[in-house]
């Protein structure tokens, strides 16, 4: 290793995101700076919720990944919209329904992985087909409308500052605390680093992973609940972008795909990077093809130049 200034892996996302914000502002004028940042924070918050769940699963050991995130998100959105039936009084019942759908989905994923001894990538993929079918039968092509108060909450601003991103930041802080101080968090990382060593210390690896998959499902369910409030209803394709994005924000955020190491703050950097890049390329009026190519090239570039965490 040469002696250049070495930054923590997770800071790169923030640096690139900041550079893109500057570039967008320079191009579109200073007036747009605040709106750009607010939009990136709001859209980024959804990616962070989904990514945080994915991170817990990825950290639980090599090969662990949840491909059912988009379908759980969509299904939870449909179930909660059906439960609430656009009535403000049912707000918490809807939230409970979304969380329950997520937890149940996580449990089913885990059971398929352990009982059928399937690789997580296949088990979660097969479940995602099933969940997709359920969502399709529940709502079909129609968009189910959210209660007015849920929409108001997701768009709520205090003194011009959107509230939801800050609520999600609290979630990130809580996740960090659990991972560094909580018993389950320490166990999760221990299982991720070496399952056999963790078992020898008396940790039930199965139970730790079960909770990781359930929390991932809950995060996806929560994102579905909030997103349908934000975007005016549950729609069939609302989760699609989060399949690749949830994995990308976790890895770009400095979490190792080999497991045993997690970085919750980094997800914010990567999520802001993703959303600000979309805004920037839109402002530059790039055509869709160029946007995709640049997105892909930047993902690879960041992964290739960032010094890699030890655990990998």
């Amino acid at each position, binding site marked *: 290793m040469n002696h250049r200034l070495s930054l923590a892996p997770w800071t790169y996302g923030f640096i690139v995101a900041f550079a893109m914000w500057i570039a967008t502002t320079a191009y579109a004028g200073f007036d747009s700076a605040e709106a750009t940042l607010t939009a990136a924070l709001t859209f980024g918050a959804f990616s962070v919720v989904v990514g945080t769940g994915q991170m817990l699963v990825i950290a639980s050991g090599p090969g662990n990944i949840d491909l059912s995130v988009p379908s759980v998100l969509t299904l939870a959105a449909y179930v909660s919209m059906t439960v609430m039936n656009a009535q403000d009084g049912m707000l918490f019942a809807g939230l409970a329904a979304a969380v329950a759908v997520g937890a149940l989905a996580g449990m089913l994923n885990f059971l398929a992985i352990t009982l059928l001894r399937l690789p997580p990538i296949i088990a979660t*993929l097969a479940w995602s087909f099933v*969940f997709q079918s359920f969502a399709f039968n529940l709502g079909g092509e129609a968009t189910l409308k959210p209660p007015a108060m849920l929409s108001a909450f997701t768009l709520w601003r205090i003194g011009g500052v959107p509230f939801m991103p800050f609520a999600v930041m609290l979630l990130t802080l809580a996740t960090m605390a659990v991972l560094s101080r909580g018993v389950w968090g320490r166990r999760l990382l221990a299982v991720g680093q070496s399952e056999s060593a963790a078992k020898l210390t008396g940790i039930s690896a199965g139970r730790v992973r079960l909770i990781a998959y359930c929390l991932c499902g809950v995060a996806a369910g929560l994102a579905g609940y909030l997103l349908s409030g934000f975007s005016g209803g549950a729609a069939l394709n609302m989760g699609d972008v989060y399949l690749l994005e949830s994995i990308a924000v976790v890895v770009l955020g400095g979490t190792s795909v080999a497991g045993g190491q997690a970085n919750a703050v980094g997800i914010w950097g990567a999520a802001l990077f993703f959303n600000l890049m979309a805004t920037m390329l839109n402002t530059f009026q790039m055509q869709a*093809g160029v946007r995709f*190519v640049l997105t892909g090239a930047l993902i690879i570039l960041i992964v290739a130049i960032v010094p890699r965490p030890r655990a990998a």
Partner: protein
Amino acid sequence: MADVMIRPTSKARPAWLSASLQVGLPAVALVLMLAVIFWIRPTAMSYFGFTLLFKLATPLVLAALAQMLIIMLGDIDLSNGAFVGLITCITALHLATNPSLAIVFYLAAIIVYAGIGLLIQARQLPSIIVTLGMSFIWLGTAIMILPSPGGAAPAWLAGFMSWRPPLVPLPILLAVIAAVVGHFAISRSSYGAILRGAGSNPRAIERAGWSTTRIRVMVYAAAGLLACLSGITLTGLTTSGDPNVAPAYTLLGVGAVILGGGSFNGGIVSPVGTVIGALTLSLAGSLLSFLQVPPTWQIGAQGGILFLVLAGRVLLSEKKP
């Protein structure tokens, strides 16, 4: 940790038996599905019926074999489907009018694939995220050269894909050829053993004097070539190019490899199993419409079929020590 050293399969069952169980499982599933289809519609049991049932299988078989090579090294390729989409665009735009240009593009794409292998090896990067990035690049490139579906397959290609060889329907014939070639190249040849070794124990292969860098570059290039063939045959079937024609191939390919007895740990793959797995998955769609499963439940039922077939592994596999 003595149990890591012992190969549990070798003492309980002879190697040939566990190998044939590996391949046998998807084969049984395939036969069962065919039996159900023929029971519902006996007329499907004909040359023409087979041709229709497996019409779209050829490109999936080739894409699954490409994925198999990557999984053999312990990696995964999330860009496979987007790449096949790009190849259909190149084929539909240039192969008829300017074949040499099309071939230059194919070669360039294969060289990029080899480059990905080199990058992953040299920087020891996780393949999942690098190929995720590549999937965006392939999709973007495809949209740039062909913004909306179109173009036309050359007449000889469309003609070849609808060719009716004597006795055996074309998709079956091509699948058998792919399985046999794959079997001898990967499972039988001595070089195949080196390749699988590079996936299961790269350090041992390095110590034996082989360059894992060269192996990874060669295997990625071969995977690119197979994915190229998948795109070309797919264009022959659909007769046009479409950037978004095959995103499902990525995960269906992975499913076929695992169905065929492969493992993500690297080194354990079966070309014959993969081909049968791909045939099974492409038949699943036909089976569901024969069973008159309502369209809203078809995707879910495919998940169910995946579970059913894979559940067989639990019954067949031996208890872990």
